């Protein structure tokens, strides 16, 4: 099989051997893994490197994992891709996300490996994965720099730590990093598809961000009024009731009819802190929730109908996972992927063209 997946809930000492055993005799070209915060990230990276010395090896810490349609926690999941899916792969690290972000050296590393400039790469053959320290608060700046530098699509997510919000890690080729992002560039044999799915529709009500603190992901005023008050008024609720609506009524930047979701995290006085940046002058739609399972099922079915799918990676927002857990629908969600080799993890943010929230960004291999 060109795509194999594995998972283990064992302790670190045995978990990597368990994954290796499930991989079998195959020598994968690429190994991607996502591990619970219960695993020491440095030790997990080191052991994975020992077990898969020849593979392009990358991963990150997570806030819940998914493999073979099972939504789990306290586990490590892995995907093994062979030459029939990925002809060549390389990874590079972008460090010091808290400083002035530069993707130049990392992209140069990838270009050297492939002996081709990014500008010359076939956009239907090359695709990137991006995994970011989920507590860096730097995803917007990173994705903007990446998007400025290349038209190659990068899809991924922000690492988690089982909702401890203490330390999140990304890893490449046996090394573990914080305050960093991993870029993985894949040359795929038969192509790929990216699905971005979020379960929201517009209410038709809009808010204009008129005063913001971008660095702290805070909106101080919408429509020249205190942000929380303006949000509450547009929803027809009181200011006191408004925070309870954040989860089901986030905001969306509407592009070609599709929302790029910006989720409110909390009220801070009369301001609202979001899980991603909103720039001054942005007009946003107030969204209302639809059905995660039905929407995701529809999106995956459409992708499968268009092309045969050999496997997929699901970068799913932790807020979606929490909602599925609360509604006891994890099994229903997992069943969408029962017949596809897949892994995924619950993220602290999703990446596709930019940084987004309450979304699943999914890479499908044809």
């Amino acid at each position, binding site marked *: 099989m060109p795509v194999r997946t594995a998972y283990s809930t064992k302790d670190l000492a045995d978990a990597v051997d368990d994954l290796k055993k499930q991989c079998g005799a195959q020598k994968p070209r690429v190994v991607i893994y996502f591990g619970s915060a219960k695993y020491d990230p440095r030790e997990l990276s080191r052991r994975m490197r020992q077990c898969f010395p020849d593979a392009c090896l990358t991963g990150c810490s997570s806030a819940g994992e998914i493999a073979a349609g099972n939504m789990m926690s306290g586990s490590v999941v892995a995907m093994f891709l062979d030459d029939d899916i990925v002809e060549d792969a390389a990874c590079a690290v972008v460090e010091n996300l808290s400083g002035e972000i530069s993707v130049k050296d990392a992209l140069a590393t990838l270009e050297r490996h492939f002996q081709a400039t990014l500008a010359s790469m076939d956009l239907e053959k090359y695709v990137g994965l991006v995994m970011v320290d989920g507590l860096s608060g730097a995803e917007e700046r990173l994705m903007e720099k990446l998007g*400025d530098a290349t038209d190659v699509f990068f899809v991924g997510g922000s690492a988690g730590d089982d909702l401890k919000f203490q330390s999140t890690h990304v890893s490449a080729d046996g090394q573990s990093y914080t305050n960093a992002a991993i870029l993985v560039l894949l040359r795929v044999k038969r192509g790929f598809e990216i699905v971005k799915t979020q379960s929201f529709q517009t209410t038709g009500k809009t808010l204009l961000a008129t005063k913001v603190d971008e660095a702290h992901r805070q909106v101080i005023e919408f429509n020249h009024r205190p942000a929380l008050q303006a949000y509450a008024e547009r929803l027809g609720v009181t200011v006191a009731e408004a925070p309870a609506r954040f989860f089901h009524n986030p905001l969306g930047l509407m592009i*070609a009819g599709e929302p790029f979701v910006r989720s409110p995290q909390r009220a801070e006085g009369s301001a609202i802190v979001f899980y991603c940046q909103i720039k001054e002058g942005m007009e946003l739609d107030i969204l209302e929730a639809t059905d995660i399972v039905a929407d995701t099922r529809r999106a995956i079915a459409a992708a499968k109908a268009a092309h045969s799918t050999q496997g997929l990676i699901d970068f799913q927002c932790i807020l979606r996972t929490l909602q599925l857990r609360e509604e006891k629908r994890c099994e229903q969600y997992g069943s969408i992927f029962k017949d596809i080799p897949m892994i995924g993890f619950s993220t602290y943010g999703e990446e596709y063209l930019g940084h987004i929230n309450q979304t699943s960004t999914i890479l499908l291999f044809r």
Partner: protein
Amino acid sequence: MAGHIKQMIDSIIEQRSKGNATLALTTKTKLVLKGLNPDRFNAGSPDDPAGIAKVQAIAAELGVRV
């Protein structure tokens, strides 16, 4: 004068997408995420100097000349 900002935005999208419809949409998306919504400008939009400077700065970030 009017419409210069719309022309500049169209030029950015054209230069980055080179006629590829998918890239035209992703470039438009990148612009919106940078805080510049192409749909908010048309041939009648005033040539506001601050707006022009903003578009020029974004063009430079995207590596194109307008």
